[in-house]
Each structure stands twice: as C-alpha cells, then as structure tokens.
C-alpha cells in the first residue's frame, strides 16, 4: 500500500516558508506537468496568483467542462496525467461531467478545485458545494486538503493514484484558507507500489491449451490494451498466432484498422462480420474489454458457443457480466508476451471470416448528389495519413468515424466511449493538438454536439491552434431521430434543429476560417482545404437529415440480429 507522508529528513536544510497556493503549483510542476486547463474564480484565486510566477502553461477554457475535456484528451494522447483547475461552487460542478467521462474511460486526470474557507464549509456559504461528496461515484479517489502541510503529499499522491493500476480521475478540493496559509514544513509523499496482480500459472497453461485446441478463436480487444501500454505486445501476439480480432469502440486502432486480421468494431453499430465472428467463435479471448452492453447486445446470446478467456488488469472486471472459463489478471503487456499457445488450426475459420468480411463490407455508393458522411470520413482519414487524430463528439458522426475512418494507432481515435458526452469533440481537439502539435487533429462533430461547447472556439482562436473542425450538420439530433424513426413509430419528439445558426458565420465571428459545402462533387476539395490550412479552420458540411447509421443492432436484440438498412 501507499505509505503515509514522511517529514523531510532530519538534518536537511529547512524549506523556505511557502503558501499553500505556492505548494500546489510547485507540486504540479514536480510531476512534469506542462499544461493546466482551467478557469479562475473566487476560491481558487490564491492558486491562480501563484500560477502567475510559474512556467506551467495555463490554457484558459471558456467553460470548466471545456477545460476538463481538453485535459482528458491531452492525457489520452500524451500518456501523461491531464490537469485541470476550477473554482468552488459552479466552477466545480461544471467539472462533474468531465470527471465522469474520465472515470468511465479510465483516463488519468487530476482536477484541483478551490473551496470556500474551512470555517465556512458546511454553512451554505457563497459558491459552496460539497464537490467531494458529489463526485464520489465518478472519481477513482478524492481528497479534501485540511492542512497546508499536506498539500505536496496529497498532490503527489493524487498524481500517483491517477496514473497507477487502472487509471482514473482524482479530485483534490482545497479550501481557500489552506491555500493562503503558510508553512515551513511541507510533507512529502512516498509511493510504494503494491505488487501488481499476477495470473496463476495454471490459468496461463489453461488459456494456452484452450487456444491451441480452438477451431474458431477470436480476440475481443478493448480499451484496456491501450491503457495498459500493451499495444505492441498485442500486435506481436497477433503476428505470432494469426488469430483474428474484433475491437470495441475504445479498442479501435490497437491493431491498425486496415490490418488483414481485424474485422472492425463489434456491437450495436459494429460490422456485421465482427458480430457474426463473435457469435460463431469457439474461444473468445477478451483482452482489456469489459463486456459493455453496447458491445455485447443481449448478453445471454453474446458469443453463445464460446469458451471465454478474460485478460484484464482490473480483477473487478472479471466475471462482472460474463463469467470466464479462464481468467488472467495482471499486466496485459506481460501476459500477452508470455502467452505462447501452439498455433491452432484455423484455415477454415479464416476462410469463413474472409468471406464474411467481403460480403458485409461497407458500401460508399449512396444515391444522390449530396455529401455521404461515411465516404467523406473515409477519404479524410486516408488523406490525413498516420498522423491523423479524430476527436469525436457523440451521435451518428461518432459511429461513422468508428466505422469508416482509418486509424493507425489507438491515440488517433478520441471518443467519449463510456459516458457518451456530447460536447467532448471540440475541447478534446484542443487537448489533442497541445499534446501532439504536429499531428493532423480533426474535431468531427455534429450540429447538436457542437453547440454544447461551441464557446471553445474562443480557446482555439486565443491560442491560434491549427485545429481542423469537420462539422456534419443534419439539422437534427440525428441518432435520437434515427431511434425515433425505427423504434418509436416515427414520433419525432424534440429532435429538429433546423433553427441552427449558420455555423460558418459563427466560426467567422470567432476569427476562424470557415466554409460550407453541400454537394458531393465539393467533397474532395473541401477535405484538401481542411487538411492544407495552416491555422484553425471549420468545414461546415450539410448532410441528409434522414441519413441513418447502419448496420444497427436493435435494443434488446442479439448482435446477429443486425439491421443493415
């Protein structure tokens, strides 16, 4: 377990007296942090005052939710801990969606909130909320700092918890009087990592035996592969064994999406080939995947003929929804490297999957002369190349990105997978471009999602970030509209957004280059203009309001009961 604080060793030169706020900034700097995303306010003013003297780069978002989404994406792309700050009360509550997003997708993040002074806590003071209590279900851990001496220890521990084991967000709530107090005697933190879980040898042998004797093995690759830095180990395992694979939304890119042994995404909007393969396999090897309902459909009919091998870093995920036949709990990279099954005989299986893949491949020959979003996204990702990063919002376009874009690496696909938070795309694009300034970062958004954090255009402009925005505008909440069409007798309730503003003019008013396209013959030129722009740019793309995402597993149905449109 992690040890308690220790006093700076006896005999060492005493530290100068510093304020709590200075200690916060020093502790964040000590973690190697480059960027903090945030928004100032009353209770956190002492920390912003200390920030004034720091080399930390602060990115001023225009809403705390924008700040935390940017920090989230920064963490996903850079592999570092994302850091954000907000004041007490509404500043803190505006972080909650972002905390939930990071919690659901296991993103390492530290959120620092100002709090009213200690003597006012619990008195319903101005801008006082119990952010510690409110966020308990959506953080990996949280702290209220009661003593100025504890600040360095707690900040360091927060970073340690955020990045260790299964990553997640950590909240540090600091009352104003604690940041204003001074101390000569800061405590420090010593991390003592517990031994990570190791799979039992018998389980490894059982998994190897099961794979070697399988006729129809299949890998089910989830986001845990990425979180566990196991991408290279997975790729080596696939090259070694030639076992075909399907991926979850968060697992896309762990294997390049054009790899011959991948069948694409499984689940509700996955490929028919992937869902058929899961249904027909006899051994399913879940790697860092959690049997999420969007992936499994009706759980009872998911992989009904398969023995399950479940590999995960987090023991709490094993058996949560599907009891495995063999469980391997530990570091995925080590387990994948050490797993050496004899090559199974898969000739007929691979031939079968090849036919499935060919028969159920996506088509891009939609009728009409309007822009067909899947074709545009495919062309965009192919032209952008290996440096492409898509920061998605949530809705139909999110599924089209997952289905049709080419991803060479998992960091290339930023999406709010677990929470499904509309408004993620634009601030995520900001975080991504700061993490990888040379990447081709494209925020792919819809007209509904875009308006949820449209104010972050000001952040893009403020820092002159060369972010590319592809706004697919169907003048409606498309995915909800699609469900109302298919499952609610076409009773279209509150999904019409035809009152949208002119998005090109909106971007222009923020000082961002923008243009609108509507016709298919404008598509290639629009993509070229987007990709060749030196500064921020928005392509407003009007698409058919009636376009649907296909294929689709109807709610409550098994994955092989997919509708193909």
């Amino acid at each position, binding site marked *: 377990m992690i040890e308690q604080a220790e006093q700076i060793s006896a005999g060492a030169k005493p530290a100068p007296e510093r304020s709590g706020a200075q200690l916060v900034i020093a502790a964040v700097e000590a973690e190697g942090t480059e960027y903090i995303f945030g928004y100032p306010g009353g209770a956190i003013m002492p920390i912003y005052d200390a920030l004034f003297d720091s080399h930390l780069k602060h990115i001023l978002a225009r809403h705390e939710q924008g700040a935390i989404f940017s920090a989230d994406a920064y963490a996903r792309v850079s592999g570092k801990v994302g850091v954000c700050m907000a004041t007490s009360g509404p500043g803190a509550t505006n972080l909650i969606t972002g905390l939930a997003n990071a919690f659901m997708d296991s993103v390492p993040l530290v959120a620092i909130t100002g709090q009213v002074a200690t003597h006012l806590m619990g008195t319903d003071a101005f801008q006082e909320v119990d952010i510690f209590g409110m966020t308990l279900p959506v953080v990996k851990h949280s702290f*209220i700092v009661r003593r100025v001496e504890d600040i360095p220890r707690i900040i360091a521990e927060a970073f340690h918890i955020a990045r260790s084991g299964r990553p997640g967000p950590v909240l540090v709530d600091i009352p104003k009087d604690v940041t204003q107090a001074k101390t000569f005697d800061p405590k420090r933190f010593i991390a003592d990592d517990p031994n990570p879980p190791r799979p039992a040898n018998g389980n490894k042998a059982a998994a190897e035996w099961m794979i070697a004797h399988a006729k129809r093995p299949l890998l089910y690759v989830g986001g845990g592969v990425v979180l566990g830095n196991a991408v290279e180990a997975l790729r080596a395992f696939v090259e070694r064994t030639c076992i075909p694979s399907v991926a979850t939304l968060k697992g896309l890119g762990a294997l390049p999406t054009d790899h011959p042994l991948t069948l694409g995404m499984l689940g509700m909007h996955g490929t028919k080939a992937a869902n058929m393969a899961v249904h027909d396999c006899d051994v399913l090897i879940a790697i860092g995947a959690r049997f999420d309902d969007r992936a499994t459909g009706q759980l009872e009919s998911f992989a009904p003929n398969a023995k399950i091998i479940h590999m995960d870093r987090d*023991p709490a995920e094993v058996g949560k929804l599907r009891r495995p036949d063999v469980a391997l*709990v530990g570091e995925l990279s080590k387990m994948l490297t050490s797993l050496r099954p004899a090559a199974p005989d898969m000739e007929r299986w691979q031939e079968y999957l090849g036919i499935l893949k060919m028969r159920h491949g996506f088509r891009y020959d939609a009728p009409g002369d309007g822009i067909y979003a899947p074709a545009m996204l495919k062309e965009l990702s192919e032209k952008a190349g290996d440096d492409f990063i898509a920061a998605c919002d949530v809705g139909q376009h999110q599924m089209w990105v997952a289905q049709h874009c080419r991803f060479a690496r998992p960091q290339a696909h930023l999406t709010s997978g677990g929470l499904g938070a509309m408004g993620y795309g634009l601030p995520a694009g900001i975080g991504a471009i700061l993490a990888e300034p040379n990447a081709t970062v494209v925020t792919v958004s819809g007209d509904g999602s875009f308006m949820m954090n449209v104010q972050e255009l000001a952040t893009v402009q403020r820092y002159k970030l060369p972010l590319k925005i592809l706004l697919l505008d169907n003048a409606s909440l498309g995915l909800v509209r699609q469900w109302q069409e298919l499952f609610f007798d076409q009773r279209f309730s509150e999904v019409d957004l035809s009152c949208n503003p002119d998005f090109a003019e909106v971007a222009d008013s923020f000082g961002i280059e923008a243009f609108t396209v509507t016709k298919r013959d404008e598509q290639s030129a629009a993509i070229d203009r987007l990709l060749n722009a030196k500064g921020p740019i928005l392509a407003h793309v009007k698409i058919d309001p009636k376009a649907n995402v296909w294929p689709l597993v109807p709610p409550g149905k098994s994955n092989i009961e997919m509708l193909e449109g």
Partner: protein
Amino acid sequence: MAQETICIEITRSEGAIQRLFGLIERRGFELTSFNMPEVHPMGANDAYHVTVGITPRDASRSVDVLSRQIGRLHGIRRIARAFVAPDMSQTQERNVGGGVS
C-alpha cells in the same frame, strides 16, 4: 435473497466510509446492517474496521464481484467475506488485489 456479511479494513481518511457505502449501494446491494467498533482487537489504529450486512437487489449481482470492486477502492487494506459471524477473527481472509481463478 440471502444476506451476506463482509468485513473490511480501510485506512482512516475523510470520506472513506461514505465512499464504501456508496459503492455498495450503487453496485446493486442493499445495506442491511453495519458495525464499526472504534477500536478493533485485531486491527491497526489508523484504520476503520467495518462489518456490513448486504443483500443483492437482484439475482445478477455477485458478492465476489462486489468484493473485488470494493478491493480496488483506494485505502482498502483487507476484505473478507463471512456468512454468519460479523467478526473478522472468524472469517477467511482474501487477498484484495490477487489473481482470480
């Protein structure tokens, strides 16, 4: 559905009990009883020793899975499952972070 008893040792810290009880309820269990002696004869002074009675709200809820979910809370030192006696000395200890077979 049958009530079960879990004994938990958790590092004393602000919110630790709230976090623990919240998790149990969110994961689909009813808290039917709890006991938290100020001093536990077998435990460390810097820890809480909590014994909770729980009942799953539906048949799909597994106490094994819940135990592992509790086990990954920061600050959990030991967790043990008992069927009868709410006394840590009469329970079989479980390694919180260990492999699952």
